[in-house]
């Protein structure tokens, strides 16, 4: 049910955000709240009260199949029983792209309130019909357009199919995968171009290559027991103690708590194509031998 996906709000054209702009979700929210506050307090006119910045965030996506209040409530209860603090004020995008009945009438106010009881804070809807859009606006939720092709390639499903092993340990409900991954997530098959895997709340362990064009993310550390050729983002919620390990550094980008280096910088490293670990030392991304 809960999947992640990077939600791109592009105000600028660059796909790879600038250093300052690349902030983890939490900080970004903080930033927004501040600017709101300054607007309300109507401070004396000294310089701009806010800056608008394009950024790329990783947000959880709740893929709704249908909205039935009691059954939704029940599934949420089950999901959170296993990990009571699993969602703590977690912003979430409500995706309507997988509705079994695309015309289903949804009370977004109800749905929003229910989500919030479990610590999930809807911030927007994704996809859906014009009716959905109107109903969502009433509930204070803007609409992000449905992803087109990218959607069919990106990972939402892959995320769970990648984790057959993890999944088979528990029951079939996709939520269980999420709960388990709160500790750490192990992937045994290669992460392919176009796929994205996010280990929420913990470490990501990949026992295979991460291809160019693939993206792996974790709230904790990322271990790749193979070549890392795609993008790896550790500590995406701001954990600056997170590290990245890999057998061969060939990455397009590595990032820890928003501090990143791109392939162009990485290629000049002595450890390019060598085993390495990356860590943060007072905001500097250090790449060193393991």
């Amino acid at each position, binding site marked *: 049910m809960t999947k992640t996906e990077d939600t791109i709000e592009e105000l600028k054209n660059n796909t790879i955000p600038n250093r300052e702009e690349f902030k983890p979700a939490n900080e970004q929210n903080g930033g927004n709240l501040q600017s709101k506050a300054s607007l309300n307090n109507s401070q004396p006119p000294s310089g701009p009260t806010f800056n608008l910045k394009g950024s790329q965030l990783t947000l959880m996506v709740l893929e709704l199949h249908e909205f039935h209040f009691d059954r939704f409530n029940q599934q949420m209860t089950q999901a959170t029983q296993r990990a009571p603090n699993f969602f703590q004020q977690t912003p979430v995008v409500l995706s309507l792209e997988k509705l079994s009945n695309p015309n289903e009438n949804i009370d977004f106010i109800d749905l929003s309130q229910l989500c919030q009881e479990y610590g999930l804070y809807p911030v927007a809807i994704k996809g859906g019909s014009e009716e959905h859009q109107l109903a969502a606006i009433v509930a204070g939720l803007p609409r992000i357009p449905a992803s087109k092709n990218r959607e069919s*390639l990106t990972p939402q499903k892959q995320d769970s199919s990648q984790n057959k092993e993890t999944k088979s340990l528990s029951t*079939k409900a996709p939520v269980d995968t999420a709960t388990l991954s709160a500790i750490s997530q192990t992937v045994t098959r290669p992460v*392919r171009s176009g796929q994205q895997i996010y280990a929420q709340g913990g470490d990501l362990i990949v026992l*295979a290559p991460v*291809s160019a*064009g693939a993206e792996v993310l974790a709230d904790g550390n990322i271990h790749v027991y193979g070549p890392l050729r795609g993008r790896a983002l550790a500590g995406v919620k701001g954990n600056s103690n997170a590290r990245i390990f890999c057998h061969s550094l060939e990455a397009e980008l590595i990032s820890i708590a928003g501090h990143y280096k791109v392939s162009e910088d990485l290629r000049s490293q002595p450890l390019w194509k060598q085993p390495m670990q990356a860590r943060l030392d007072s905001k500097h991304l250090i790449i060193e031998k393991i």
Partner: protein
Amino acid sequence: MAKIIVVTSGKGGVGKTTTSAAIGTGLALKGKKTAIIDFDVGLRNLDLVMNCERRVVYDFVNVINEEATLNQALIKDKRTEGLFILPASQTRDKDALTQEGVQRVLNELAETFDYIVCDSPAGIEKGAHMAMYFADVAIIVTNPEVSSVRDSDRILGILQSKTMRAETGGEPIEEYLLLTRYSPERVEKGEMLSVEDVEDILAIQLLGIIPESKTVLKASNQGVPVILDDESIAGQAYEDAVNRLLGEEVEHRFLTVAKKGFLKRMFGGNQ
């Protein structure tokens, strides 16, 4: 129960149709009753490669829409016993392929056939999805160049999520790499990726290496699957691949640069 093989690539023009025709014919030569389905609706060319374009009355889409029976649409190959072709429609678009329709046709074929080879269109759109959805085995046709390898990687990711086996949590699809249009000389010069490079990136089992050979174009212009050309090294390489598909252990003949001298002689003799 028939085995369903999808021949796919992501990138266009890498040799999917050539491969479908060769592997399908090779399987039939081995006594396996085989059907090759052209999923490239709107751009059909399997029937040209198989030299049956003049006998097309009904096509795959007609069968899906129940405008014709499967038996009416299947074309029996004139050269190879036990080989049938289900041509694509030239006049429809790929939206004519519905999941239910495709499934019904495959189920019906599975009753009497041993192998069903699905020739996928290029791209990652509907036609490609339909061709792979019900597959048991995937042959990823890849040329030794970066963009083709990247697309193959992407297709492998899609195979892991957008197929029936993935969605129902069944056994994963068997994935094989078929490296085509391989030219050891160009690899030597650094103009092409080597087998090792490609294997390293894709990390799947290698089914075969089909060398670049002029006999391929000649064969398809004549409407003869290249596997029937004993003189062609591409044909021989396809034969090896079919044997491997059937579980035999066959050494890769065109794998290492060390054998280059030998390859050069082979190439010299065949071009």
